[in-house]
């Protein structure tokens, strides 16, 4: 076995938005060394594209870039999630292992497979590897609880920033506060410090000077990786915020964990209910977040949002099926939807232009509608 040859395990994992913070917390609290990959850059993407199969979807390519950069920094154990399909993600790990092996790296890849998987199998596996560290069940539970609380804080942080960014008076203020708080959450070591952090977040954001200008509300739906990873979606949340749009996402890390890693009886009920909204358009589970994307568009329209942006990586199978349903959904629920397909050739300027055009259209629509209302009253 590989881990007999090396003394210290240096764990790494792929990036997906802020997920590195809770993951790092778990492993570090179990006494393992963690080397998170450097943040995604042009280089990450180029490495990924160079060594991945041409027609694989973008997340696989970025993962490869992450892994290469982390292995270069000295990591030797990769933690990756598996799956049972039909989305390609379930077979990512196998392909990535082959690619990295061919590149001559010396590493071990731990792929966590559902349904036996879940968190405890991961920890069991990690426990076997690091048999020097005698972690008791209590330690493990403590580590997970801390990570979970951090994940909740991160989601709250995102939500708060979505609210203030479009109405901040000095541009960039929200980002400054956001990054400062992110660093703080990353540095928390003990659970005691976490409980009053919630109020700290709210307080920090309330210190930002805001105007009372009217915003429009846009929902973001689509494939989880493209929604959560700002490098891939070209900072869509920030860009929309700067355009005066209040953003809302369909998926947060904690929701995903609740819906996918918890046993069936603990799963949130409203999720299944929400999926039923997609029934007339997409009648069954189609893998990935395909059905959910459609359901969320309906949901956003019911909540009174002004528009929805649908994100997917190029050739993503479930989202293509979802895309075929969107024109009908959009018509039936009178909500504009823009689909953005992301791949390694996406460029920020063109993307910005599309976002501007989309928001302009929404604003114009609103104006016309309001105008009509005023006139009808007279």
């Amino acid at each position, binding site marked *: 076995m590989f881990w007999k040859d090396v003394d210290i395990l240096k764990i790494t994992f792929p990036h997906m938005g802020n997920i590195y913070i809770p993951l790092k917390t778990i492993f570090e609290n179990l006494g393992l060394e963690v080397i998170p990959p450097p943040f995604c850059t042009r280089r990450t993407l180029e490495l990924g594209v160079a060594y991945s199969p041409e*027609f694989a979807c973008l997340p696989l390519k970025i993962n490869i870039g992450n892994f290469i950069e982390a292995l270069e920094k000295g990591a030797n154990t990769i933690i990756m999630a598996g799956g049972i399909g039909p989305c*390609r993600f*379930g077979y990512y790990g196998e392909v990535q292992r082959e690619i990295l092996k061919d590149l001559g790296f010396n590493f071990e890849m731990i792929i966590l497979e559902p349904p036996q998987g879940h968190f405890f199998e991961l920890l069991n596996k990690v426990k076997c590897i690091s048999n020097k560290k005698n972690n008791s069940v209590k330690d493990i539970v403590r580590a997970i609880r801390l990570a979970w609380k951090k994940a909740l804080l991160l989601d709250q942080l995102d939500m708060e920033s979505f609210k203030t960014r479009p109405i901040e008076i000095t541009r960039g203020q929200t980002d400054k506060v956001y990054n400062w708080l992110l660093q703080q959450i990353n540095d928390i070591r003990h659970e005691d410090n976490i409980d009053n952090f919630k109020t700290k977040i709210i307080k920090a954001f309330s210190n930002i000077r805001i105007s009372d200008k009217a915003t429009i509300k846009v929902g973001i739906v689509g494939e989880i990786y493209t929604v959560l990873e700002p490098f891939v979606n070209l900072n869509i949340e920030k860009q929309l915020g700067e355009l005066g749009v209040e953003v809302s996402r369909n998926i947060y890390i904690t929701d995903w964990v609740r819906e996918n890693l918890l046993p069936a009886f603990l799963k949130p009920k409203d999720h299944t209910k929400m999926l039923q909204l997609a029934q007339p358009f997409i009648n*069954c589970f189609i893998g990935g977040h395909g059905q959910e994307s459609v359901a969320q568009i309906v949901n956003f329209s019911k909540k009174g949002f002004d528009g929805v942006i649908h994100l997917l990586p190029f050739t993503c199978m479930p989202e293509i*099926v979802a895309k075929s349903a969107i024109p009908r959904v959009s018509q039936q629920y009178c909500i504009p939807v823009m689909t953005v397909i992301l791949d390694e050739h996406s460029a920020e300027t063109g993307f910005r232009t599309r976002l501007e055009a989309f928001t302009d259209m929404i604003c114009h629509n609103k104006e016309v509608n309001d105008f009509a209302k005023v006139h009808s009253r007279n």
Partner: protein
Amino acid sequence: MKIGIPRALFYYQFYPFWKIFFESLGHNVILSSPTNKEILKKGIELCVDDACLPIKIFHGHVADLMGKVDTIYIPRIVSIEPKEYICPKFLGLPDMIRNSIPDLPCIMDTELNLYRGKSKIFDYVFKLGKDLNVNKNRVLVAYYKALKTQKQFEYQLTRELRIPQDILNETRQIQKDQVLEKKPSHIKVLLLGHNYNIYDDFISMGLIRKLRKQNIAFITSEMVVKKNILEGTKKLSKDMFWTLGKKTIGTAHYFLDRKKIDGIIHVASFGCGPDSLVGELIEKKIKRDYTIPFLSLNLDEHAGETGFNTRLEAFLDVLEGRGYIEDNFSTYG
């Protein structure tokens, strides 16, 4: 009632079953025309742009059937083997059709889902029977009759080594393709790819026709018995959850190990999710452990036949050249 079946996707695998099943329940089965330019054009117009070529062509076939039939049979094929799926696009196919094609006649979208076990096939046939308003006894009779034909069809594929095209078109003259034993001097090619791509003469740009014309012996994964495919997949570190991908990779491993072939052609459609990974795994395997030439053909609606021919010819030249060099190697150095 006239039931229309599009001549695309799983037509190449389940048509004998569907035909006999519907006919023994007293319905007429009507097929769409073989794929042609018109169908492709309609398919591209109707279908969402990001879908792969076979899905687009399926849309065209459905459009071709409209007006000619009372109902179109578009099953939702979730899974045909336990613990495996086909592909998300198959799962959502009836939805895609409903969302993209206006003024559809009524469609039958019975779900075929054997994910939780093969016995679920009865759920499927009874649901079909319910949609057609027939009682269970008659459904069972029709099912066993259809099953017999399907078994016979599979026997013809794996034992007589015929290809679905010939059996389904009822070509009289039997063309044995897999002549591995009988004509040892011929070049033997393993033709990998999804059945709805390689057997559709239009999509694959006559690949099979062209191979036959060049007198190349070929074998496809449809001609391999399941046992051998499973033997091939044993080499995988994780079981594959796509039925078609598993078939492809299993066949590849099986023949690579036995060294019975001179070359491999892998046909994939542009944007095919499973094949983007399966193709890569096969290619890596061949590069690492074997010295067999590998040709990967990616098809979409823009593929030009001339370029396709050039690549195929070049590949066959390589295979021929290798045979020639090995045979005539000078003993004097």
